[in-house]
């Protein structure tokens, strides 16, 4: 049960966050933070297919995470889900076409090792 939940969390988080980044990239930089402008941006984003799919995937991830917290400690849940960093960085390069230079690869690798050390 624990590993099934981890699998669901990792898959839905990765898909959700990559879709979220793709949707927001398509929307373009948000520059106006007055309440009315934020409301208009949310209205536009609510019709963005990438964002809708991202919210659905992240809702799955959220409820699976709630379920995991009831049967496992944070010290198990956090490092087990840190694998999403690797998957998302790879997808950022190949799907989102970001320039992942070597500093970002090294930085992401250090972060993954660090997360494992902090939470194990």
């Amino acid at each position: 049960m624990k590993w099934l939940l981890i699998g669901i969390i990792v898959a839905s988080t990765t898909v959700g966050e990559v879709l979220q980044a793709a949707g927001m990239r398509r929307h373009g930089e948000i520059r106006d933070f007055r309440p009315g402008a934020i409301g208009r941006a949310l209205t536009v984003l609510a019709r963005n297919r990438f964002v809708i799919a991202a919210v659905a995937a992240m809702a799955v991830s959220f409820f699976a995470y709630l379920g995991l917290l009831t049967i496992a400690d944070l010290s198990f849940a956090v490092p087990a889900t840190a694998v999403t960093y690797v998957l998302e960085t790879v997808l950022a390069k190949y799907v989102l076409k970001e320039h992942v230079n070597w500093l970002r690869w090294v930085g992401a690798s250090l972060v993954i090792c660090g997360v494992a050390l902090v939470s194990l």
Partner: protein
Amino acid sequence: MTHEHARLRLKTWSFAVVVVFSNVFGNFFLKRGMPPALATPLAYITVLFHPWVALGVLLMIVWMLSRMALLSWADLSYVLPVTAVGYVLVAILGKVLLNEQITMQRWAGIGLIVAGVALVSGGSAPQTAHPGTETAGPGQ
């Protein structure tokens, strides 16, 4: 260009702070409010009305919206490692608020995360793939 660069960097840092703090405190309140077990599907819904869980959920909504705004201009491969500084904050809050021990192993992990965040944030601009050219692939 340099002015634009500085503007984007300041904006990125401001939002990264909001993203990190809302996530750390959101998780903290969620964990605090969660009951030992969620027996039925209905329990997953009713637990959302528990005060600590509701506060946690509210902060997670702030987290999601601020992260969406951040991703509207910054790369995912930049946002991911930089916001990982939250793990460091969790360890420090645990020590300050809950009197938890920070072992050598945890200090080593904190050091690695800080080094990773410094490399990514110092070694590249927040944005490499330019908006508006989504079909043409990466800019620059």
